[in-house]
């Protein structure tokens, strides 16, 4: 990079320079020609003719110069920025305690925000891990006097809802999860979480099994309900990820079952189950007059293509009215609710997570206030250094940028540490039992979270630097002018000047 260069030029200045340069050339040629004896007019005419396409050259040179100017400015800016960063690193190295304390504070604050954001994003913003999850709805019963209070559905009502509605492509249901005892070979018995589901549920969710198959229609009737589907985590942990387990018998609670399928990693319906068995409702249906009052099914439906949730809701409420009329004893004031499955799953988590994120942001703000305080007091300590830099020609803007660069460097390093901290924390947590965390809740630190972390760090850095920077710059220039007034030009060297370094 040359030490001196032309000052920065505007478009008009570039045009003037090109004109002056070309005019100089023509004038030189004209005077050479007049020296040979040509008249001024003839000389001018010949010079222009010899030159070639003057206007095109003018336009070409202006355009090229404008490009050159832009490139030069970019190089300058980059060089200044690098100089600022180098200077910032040197300054931070010179005060290791300040740097260490700041880094730790920022790392913890940014790390906490990153970790919580990764979960928040996964839970609140990410789609559910099912096929075409936008069309999935949770279907529940409710009472007309309390229409927004969901209740599980009783088995006979479920069968009627499923048969009479015409807005959902299908409806599936699960009972509450239960424990089953299983005694592996050469090991102590273990309690497993199992979930009884209707065969239709897997088809409604549109998740194909990793291996084998899920339940077929009719595999939930007595004598045909001896099959189970196991989770990926169970398969990994207890069956040694053996691909030949399909078709193998397994005894649960003393009853023989056959493993027919393995679901993909992370698949879950209620969040903790390890296996699924068919839900046999035949007994309940045989005693419908009694069981119509027993509400324990959680139903999920899939909207038919082109059907709105509102239409499905109206449809199911109409069915509920009819069921109320037909079974006034069991279905007094029966109504129905249809909510997006995503809302039903994360609805209760959303406020809690937002609150948590809010708390983490507050922690970051407190850390920032603390940090700004430190930076400010340090900036006051550095008045002399800033005054010197200002006296050497650093503009006010440059001084502010210097301090902002320092805090951005600090915040970026803190952010990197924080991201590492969050990643380490997530890694340790996941390492405890990697497959048990359902996919829908496994945050994971991916590009999006990294982007969040970087943005947060830079915003923090800029916020931290601007105010102290402005204060210090104002302080610096005030001091410089004061110094100019107080100290005579030929005065004895200031004793404190020796300590400048």
């Amino acid at each position, binding site marked *: 990079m*040359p030490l*001196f260069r032309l000052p920065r030029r505007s478009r008009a200045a570039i045009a003037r320079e090109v004109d002056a*340069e070309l005019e100089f050339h023509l004038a030189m040629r004209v*005077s050479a020609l007049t020296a040979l004896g040509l008249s001024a007019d003839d000389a001018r005419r010949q010079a222009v003719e010899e030159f070639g396409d003057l206007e095109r050259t003018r336009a070409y*040179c202006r355009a090229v110069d404008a490009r*050159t100017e832009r490139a030069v400015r970019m190089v300058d800016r980059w060089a200044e920025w690098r100089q600022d960063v180098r200077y910032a690193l040197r300054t931070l190295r010179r005060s290791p305690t300040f740097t260490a304390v700041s880094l730790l504070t920022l790392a913890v604050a940014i790390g906490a925000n990153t970790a919580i954001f990764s979960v928040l994003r996964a839970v609140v913003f990410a789609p559910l891990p099912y096929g075409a999850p936008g069309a999935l709805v949770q279907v529940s019963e409710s009472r007309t006097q309390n229409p927004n209070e969901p209740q599980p559905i009783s088995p006979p009502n479920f069968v009627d809802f499923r048969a009479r509605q015409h807005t959902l492509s299908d409806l599936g249901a699960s009972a509450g999860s239960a424990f089953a005892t299983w005694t592996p070979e050469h090991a102590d018995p273990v309690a497993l979480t199992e979930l009884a589901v209707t065969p239709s549920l897997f088809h409604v969710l549109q998740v194909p099994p990793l291996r084998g198959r899920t339940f077929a229609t009719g595999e939930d009737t007595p004598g045909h309900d001896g099959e189970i589907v196991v989770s990926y985590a169970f398969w990994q942990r207890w069956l040694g990820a053996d691909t030949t387990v399909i078709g193998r018998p397994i005894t649960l609670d003393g009853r023989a079952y056959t493993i027919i399928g393995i679901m993909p990693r992370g698949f879950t319906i209620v969040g903790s189950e390890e296996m699924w068995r068919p839900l046999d409702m035949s007994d309940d249906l045989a005693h419908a007059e009694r069981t119509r009052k027993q509400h324990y099914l959680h139903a999920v439906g899939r909207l038919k293509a082109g059907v709105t949730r509102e239409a499905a809701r109206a449809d199911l409420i109409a069915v509920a009215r009819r069921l109320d009329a037909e079974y006034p004893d069991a279905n007094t004031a029966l109504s129905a609710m249809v909510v997006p499955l995503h809302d039903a799953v994360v609805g209760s988590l959303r406020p809690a997570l937002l609150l948590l994120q809010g708390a983490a942001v507050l922690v970051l703000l407190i850390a920032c206030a603390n940090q700004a305080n430190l930076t400010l007091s340090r900036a006051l300590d550095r008045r002399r250094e800033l005054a010197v830099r200002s006296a050497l020609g650093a503009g006010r803007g440059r001084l502010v940028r210097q301090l902002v660069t320092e805090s951005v460097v600090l915040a970026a390093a803190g952010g990197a540490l924080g991201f590492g901290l969050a990643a380490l924390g997530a890694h340790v947590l996941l390492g405890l039992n990697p497959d048990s965390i359902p996919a829908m809740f496994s945050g994971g630190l991916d590009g999006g979270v990294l982007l969040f972390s970087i943005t947060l760090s830079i915003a923090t850095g800029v916020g931290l630097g601007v105010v102290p920077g402005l204060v210090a710059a104002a302080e610096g220039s005030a001091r410089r002018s004061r110094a100019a007034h107080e100290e005579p030009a030929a005065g004895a060297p200031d004793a404190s000047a020796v300590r400048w370094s």
Partner: protein
Amino acid sequence: MARTPAELLQGTVDILILRALAWEPMHGYAISRWLDERSGGVLGVEGAALYQALHRIEHRAWVTASWGLSENNRKAKFYALTSAGRAQLRAESVVWKRYADAVFKVLSPA
């Protein structure tokens, strides 16, 4: 002034300018005089090609420009070779010499 041969390629103008500036920093008019004299009037470069080339190689950072006073005390834009320009001149000279030798060899009677 000799006419610029139509086939005098853009790159050739660049290298001729670089060669002129390797002598000393000059303004555009001085470069055209220098080339004219050095080539015995054969390699005269017309003004349009000369100035377009000058601004082009300034953009490539082979030369830097600054305003100074000409020999007759007029404001003129002077160009000076940069180290990148010097390297470019060396590299291009080798290529040109090889090319010219080859053409000469083909044209000379066997």
